[in-house]
């Protein structure tokens, strides 16, 4: 049937629904304005800002120690890695010599954070495509990591364990034991994840060929992390710009070339294995030494610009600091992975069904505070 133009934006058979900000699949307060023709998605317009706290403006007011805890609240699922990014920026600017012990501990906890984040993602992903049980299995395993964090860092989610110059306090005596227990436990659970969800024929049908992102588009849209790697774009910051103790470990970059939702899913499952292997390589030989180096009570970065990128659970997190030599940054910009990953949602979900959009969004693994900052 011929469609007539009613107004400039809509065709007569298209209609518009408002997905979010209180929608189960948007995981928080993301609002999507969908233009739909029947079940087919014609356009996705994200409307952001429902949880914007202007962390960048707050950073211009705070001292460098105080900035660290704000980053917990960005991507709360990889809070340790966010903390690490800010601390690395400050440490590199001050040219501090960080003890090996700190580097190793940071890396271990960072990888644990990544696993915890992926566990949660796996559970929620299953729930988004309708398998509600996965949620609890994912959370069960994540809970063990959270307990490790709570014992060592004192908090489960917003840990603030890093300070510029090292760690806030030394690891708990039980840390190594518990981490080893977790690694042994989790090695038996990932195959179970595979049997429950990955192999499932319905799941495969839902995921395969859905939301295809080509390598060129992935790069052009600035996709990073598992989203970029699923499109065959080697973008692991841990490989290309290793930080902390990541240059001492060997691991494979999880790469897939299909670029569809299933590839993004598989890349994350592979990443969990790689993270386990990184932890195993480091956990037995955490070097002795100080857990921090002394810094001035008031940290003043030398005049200049500093950029540090780290691989957060969702992709490349960048911290761009412009310092004028005072105790506050002149401008601090967080390049958050979720923001770029969200921008490609419209591109890859147009033409799919509503169910595809939900599945695609789940594999992008969006954390809204990370996007809104």
């Amino acid at each position: 049937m011929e469609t007539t133009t009613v107004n400039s934006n809509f065709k007569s058979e298209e209609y518009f629904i408002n997905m979010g900000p209180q929608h189960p699949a948007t995981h928080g307060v993301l609002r999507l304005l969908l233009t739909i023709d029947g079940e087919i998605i014609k356009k996705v317009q994200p409307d952001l800002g429902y949880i914007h706290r202007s962390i960048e403006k707050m950073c211009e007011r705070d001292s460098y120690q105080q900035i660290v805890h704000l980053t917990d609240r960005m991507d709360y699922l990889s809070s340790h890695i966010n903390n690490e990014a800010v601390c690395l920026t400050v440490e590199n600017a001050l040219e501090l010599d960080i003890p090996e012990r700190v580097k190793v501990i940071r890396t271990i906890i960072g990888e644990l954070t990544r696993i915890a984040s992926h566990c949660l993602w796996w559970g929620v992903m299953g729930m988004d495509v309708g398998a509600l049980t996965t949620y609890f299995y994912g959370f069960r395993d994540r809970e063990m990591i959270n307990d490790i964090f709570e014992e060592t860092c004192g908090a489960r989610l917003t840990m603030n364990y890093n300070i510029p110059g090292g760690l806030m306090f030394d690891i708990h005596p039980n840390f190594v034991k518990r981490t080893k227990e977790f690694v042994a436990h989790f090695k038996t659970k990932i195959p179970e994840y595979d049997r429950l969800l990955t192999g499932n024929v319905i799941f495969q049908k839902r995921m395969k060929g859905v939301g295809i992102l080509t390598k060129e588009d992935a790069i052009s849209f600035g996709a990073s992390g598992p989203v970029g790697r699923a499109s065959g774009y080697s973008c692991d910051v841990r490989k290309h710009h290793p930080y902390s103790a990541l240059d001492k470990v060997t691991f494979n970059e999880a790469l897939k070339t299909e670029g569809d939702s299933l590839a993004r899913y598989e890349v994350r499952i592979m990443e969990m294995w790689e993270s386990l292997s990184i932890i195993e390589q480091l956990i037995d030989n955490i070097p002795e030494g100080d857990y921090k180096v002394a810094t001035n009570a008031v940290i003043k970065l030398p005049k200049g610009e500093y950029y540090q990128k780290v691989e957060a659970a969702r992709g490349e997190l960048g911290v761009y600091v412009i310092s004028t030599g005072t105790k506050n940054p002149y401008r601090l910009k967080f390049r958050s992975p979720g923001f770029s990953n969200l921008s490609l949602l419209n591109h890859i979900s147009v033409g799919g069904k509503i169910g595809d959009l939900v599945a695609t969004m789940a594999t992008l693994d969006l954390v809204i505070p990370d996007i809104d900052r």
Partner: protein
Amino acid sequence: MSYFSNIYNGIKTLLTGMSVTGKYFLNSRKGAITQEYPDNRDTLKMFERFRGEVVMPHDENNEHRCTGCQKCEIACPNGSIEIIWDRKVNPETGKKKKEIDQHIYHLGMCTMCSLCIEACPTDAIVWAQNYENSVYDRSYLTRVLNQPESTLKAGVED
């Protein structure tokens, strides 16, 4: 032929998935991970480093270790600590000395970042493992950490 092998493989994967959940169903007695929270209050113990709220420990003589240096107040990113202090004359030495009147802590504004406790030179404030912080009125969240009539412990400042 692939039509039938698709059906066969599909059913096989479905049964594999069902075996996973079925295993948990059969072990549901011992496998439950539910924390029956208000019931297990007696046995629920937080880790020693758990950041519940900031407290100021007092010893049996009602003495604390806070000198009123305000380092915690400066370190706090949210302004959740306010210290009201005064200079009082020490009767023994006759010197004027800073002394806290009230160490006010706004739990409602606290983000549990631990910077104040790191900043404290005399370990006057520590984390408590209390995890039940909800109250019926926001004003209850503003707490005075030093007890009434408490004094500075001797020798802390040296």
